[in-house]
């Protein structure tokens, strides 16, 4: 098969360098492949972050922090209101909702309590 000399010249112009890659191949290997790798890693990181990697749960002073109020007791049976009896069934430290807290403990204040308070 006879190849026209002009065509050989044109082909050799598009296959420069030691690897002899065309411009399209160069773009594919050196831009396309790294871009695909970056996208895959970014995608995996986004999925991992959304599953609760702790990003939202982190408390930073001065920034709003949304969470359900919790109340822990070493011995759940020590709580006086009805919520306490329900929680006593599980051995896990209990958590109360703010609604349950409002239901109980509105009697007269008991004197003689002490303690301390502070701000940060």
């Amino acid at each position: 098969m006879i190849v026209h000399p002009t065509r050989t010249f044109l082909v050799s112009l598009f296959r420069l360098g030691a690897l002899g890659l065309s411009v399209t191949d160069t773009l594919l290997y050196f831009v396309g492949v790294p871009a695909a790798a970056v996208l895959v890693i970014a995608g995996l990181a986004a999925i991992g972050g959304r599953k609760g990697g702790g990003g939202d749960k982190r408390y930073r002073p001065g920034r709003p922090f949304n969470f359900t109020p919790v109340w822990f007791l070493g011995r759940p049976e020590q709580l006086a209101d009805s919520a306490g009896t329900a929680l006593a069934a599980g051995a896990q430290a209990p958590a109360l909702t703010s609604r349950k807290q409002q239901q109980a403990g509105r009697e007269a204040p008991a004197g003689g309590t002490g303690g301390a308070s502070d701000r940060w």
Partner: protein
Amino acid sequence: MTVGEKQAETGTAVPPQVLDGPFSTRQLLRIDEALRLADQGTGLVFSVYVGHFDEDESIRTYTERLHRQLAEPDKSVLIAVSPNQRQLEIVTGKYARKRIPDTYAKLAALSMVASFGGGDLAGGIIQGLDQLATHAGKG
């Protein structure tokens, strides 16, 4: 029993409400352990509240009302923390106050506040529990 097991026991896909709280499972377990050790070591009843303080009344009144909801307020110690209001209250009952004088409660509060200021809620609570329990001594 762990939090994860509790979820399996109830048989629902909804996670326990405590996991919507400010702590991870690991932190919850550490707080649970610290509370248990403090209770066992001192004979007092330690309790930790993390949430918003009602602004209708003074913060002290509100936390004292929370304290009264405990079965034995006299021998109870309530550590109440409001991360958004950046406020910490320690409430000791009549009997607990004799074991933990207000000056020592203030010392514990100071070290807790130092941790909270650095963004470490669980660490501060555990440290405070340890300090209060150590000072209260054996019951």
